C-alpha cells in the first residue's frame, strides 16, 4: 500500500518535526536560559500526551474509513458513550478497574456492531453523502441518549493512576501521560500489523476499495464492516477514558465529544486512510496546540486561541496536500 514515495514523505515529515522542535528549543533556551529549556520540555511532554490522545481518536476514524469508506462523524459520540459506560461499570457498579474496562470495551464493541448492523449496513451502495449524513444523525442521537441517561451533574471517574506523576529534573510527567503515549503507540503498531499482515485486515482494505468485487472473491464483507465499527468503538472508549482523566481530573461532561471535533484536523492532516498519518497528525496538532498556548499569549489573538490552532494549521496544509500528508491518492490509468 505504502509505496517508496510515501515512506520518504513520512521520514521527511518526521525530520521536519524534529528540526522544528529543535529550533523551538533553541529559541526558548536563548530567550530564557536553562529555565527556558525545562519550560520547553514540559510543553513538549504535554503536547505529546495531548497529541497521543488526538492520535487515538484519529485512529478510530481511520479504521472505519479504511474498511467501509465512510467518514464517521459520530466518532465523538462514541467517545462520549464509551466514557460514560466505563464510568457506569467502574463507579456505579463499583467493579475493579480492569474488569470495568474490559466490560466497557466489550459492551462498546457490541454497540459498534449494533450501529453497523442496524444503520450503516443499510447505507451500502448509497451515495457517500448519505452515509456521512447518517453518521451526523447518529452523533445527535447518541449525544442526546447519553445526556438523558446520565443527566445529573457531577459524575467523576477515578482511575488507579489518575493522579500519579514522576519528576525528571524539573519536568513533571503524569502517569496518565505515559498511558496516553503508550496506548497510542501500541494501537498504532497493532493497527499496522492488522491491516498489513492479517487476512482480515487485507479483506477490510479490499472491501473498502470495492465491496462488490471483494465479496465476489469470498471476503465476508459483513464481518469486515462490523469489525471496523467494533474496533472504532473500543478505540473511542480508550481515548475517552484517557481524555477525561487527563483534562478534567476525571470529571465527566458531555463536552468530551467536543474534543473529538478538535481531533478531526489530526485525522485529515495525516490522511483519512493512513494509520501512520493519524498518529503523526495527532502529534503535530497536539504539540502545536500546547506550544501555541505556552508561548503565544498576545492579547489580540484572543482567549483560548489554542482551540483554533488545529484548524489554522490544517488549512494551508490541505491546500498544499489535499489528501493529507500521507493519504493515498487514487491510482488512475486510462
Amino acid at each position, binding site marked *: *500500500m505504502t*509505496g517508496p514515495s510515501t515512506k520518504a514523505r513520512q521520514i521527511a515529515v518526521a525530520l521536519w518535526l524534529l528540526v522544528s522542535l529543535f529550533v523551538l528549543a533553541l529559541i526558548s533556551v536563548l530567550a530564557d536560559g536553562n529555565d527556558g529549556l525545562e519550560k520547553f520540555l514540559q510543553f513538549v511532554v504535554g503536547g505529546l500526551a495531548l497529541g497521543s490522545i488526538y492520535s487515538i481518536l484519529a485512529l478510530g476514524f481511520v479504521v472505519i474509513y479504511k474498511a467501509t469508506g465512510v467518514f464517521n462523524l459520530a466518532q465523538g459520540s462514541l467517545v462520549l458513550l464509551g466514557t460514560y459506560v466505563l464510568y457506569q461499570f467502574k463507579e456505579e457498579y463499583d467493579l475493579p478497574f480492569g474488569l470495568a474496562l474490559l466490560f466497557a470495551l466489550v459492551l462498546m464493541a457490541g454497540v459498534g456492531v449494533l450501529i453497523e448492523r442496524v444503520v450503516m449496513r443499510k447505507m451500502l*451502495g448509497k451515495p457517500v453523502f448519505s452515509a456521512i449524513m447518517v453518521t451526523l444523525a447518529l452523533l445527535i442521537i447518541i449525544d442526546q441518549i447519553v445526556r438523558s441517561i446520565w443527566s445529573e451533574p457531577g459524575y467523576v471517574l477515578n482511575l488507579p493512576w489518575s493522579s500519579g506523576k514522576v519528576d525528571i529534573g524539573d519536568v513533571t510527567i503524569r502517569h496518565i501521560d505515559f498511558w496516553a503515549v503508550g496506548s497510542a503507540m501500541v494501537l498504532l503498531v497493532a493497527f499496522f500489523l492488522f491491516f498489513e499482515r492479517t*487476512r482480515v485486515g*487485507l*479483506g477490510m*482494505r*479490499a472491501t473498502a*476499495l*470495492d*465491496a*462488490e*468485487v*471483494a*465479496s*465476489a*472473491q*469470498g*471476503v*465476508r*464483507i*459483513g464481518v469486515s464492516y462490523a469489525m471496523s465499527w467494533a474496533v472504532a468503538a473500543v478505540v473511542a472508549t480508550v481515548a475517552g477514558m484517557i481524555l477525561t482523566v487527563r483534562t478534567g481530573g476525571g470529571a465527566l461532561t458531555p463536552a468530551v465529544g467536543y474534543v473529538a471535533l478538535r481531533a478531526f484536523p489530526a485525522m485529515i492532516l495525516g490522511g483519512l486512510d493512513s494509520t501512520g498519518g493519524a498518529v503523526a497528525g495527532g502529534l503535530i496538532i497536539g504539540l502545536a496546540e500546547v506550544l501555541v498556548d505556552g508561548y503565544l499569549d498576545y492579547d489580540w489573538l484572543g482567549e483560548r486561541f489554542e482551540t483554533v490552532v488545529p484548524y489554522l494549521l490544517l488549512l494551508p496544509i490541505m491546500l498544499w496536500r489535499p489528501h493529507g500528508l500521507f493519504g*493515498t491518492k*487514487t*491510482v*488512475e*490509468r486510462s
Partner: protein
Amino acid sequence: MATLLKKSERAAADERNHLAIKVVDLHVSYQRSIKALQGVNLEVPQGKVVAILGANGAGKTTFLRTICGLLGFNGGAISQGSYHLWGQPADKLAPQRIVRLGVGQVLEGRRIFSELTVEENLDVGAISVRNRRATHDLKEHLFTQFPVLGERRNSVAGYLSGGEQQMLAIARALMSDPSLIVLDEPSLGLAPIIARQIAGIISDISTDGTTVLLVEQNAAMALSLSDYAYIFRHGKVAQEGPSEELRADRDILELYLGGGTSESKTKSERS
C-alpha cells in the same frame, strides 16, 4: 490449472451431481419493476465450457450476477425459479458462500483492486481458503503461469496494462482453486492479439478440468472455446445447442446476434 486443493474431496460430490449449475425457470428483476430475466433454463455440466451469447441488454450479465449471488448490490432479486450449484440450492447464498462452494468469478470490466499490489490482489482471491501452505504454492504456481504478473508482484495493480489487469483478474479468481470459473466479457476492450491470448488462457483452464461459464459479446471467440452455448434474448434463452452446430448455422447467428450484413458477419468471425 493445477489441482492443488479440495478437488478430490469435491470429486465425489461432483460425480453424484454432474451438473455444476442447474437453473430452472429463473426470473430476476431490478428495483421490483425492471424485468431482466424472464424464465431462464440453463445447465452447465461439470468439466465443460459453456458460453452465453447475446446482444447488449439480453440479460447475460444479470445472469452471471445471479450465479455469483451479487444481485443485491444493484437492487436486483430473484423473483421466481430455482438455482442449484452441484445439486445444492444456491439462490439465497451470499457471494462468499458461493465462492466457498468452488465458484471463481471474473467480473466484467476486470475490477481489480487498483490500489493494492498484484500479490495482495491474489491474496484477496484466496481469502476464503483455509490452507495457507497450499495457497502459497498456488500463488507461486500462478506467477510462473503468468510471468508478467510474477515480474510485477509488488507493484500497484492500477499501473498494469489492460491485458495484464485481465490476467490478474483471472489469476485472482483461480486463487480460490475453483471447480467452476465464470467470466464476464473477458475480451472486452482488449486488443485483438491480447484477446486471443486471454482465449488461450481460458482454454488452458478448461483443459485442466475446471468447468467454465463464459459470457461474451464476441461470438466467434466464445463459440470456438465452448462445448455448448446458449443465446440470450430479451431475458430468455432464445436458442441453445452444441457450439459447433451453432457456429455452422449462420442464420441463427445473424438472427440473434445482429450484424445484418455479411460484411459484419465475417467481421465477428475474425476479430
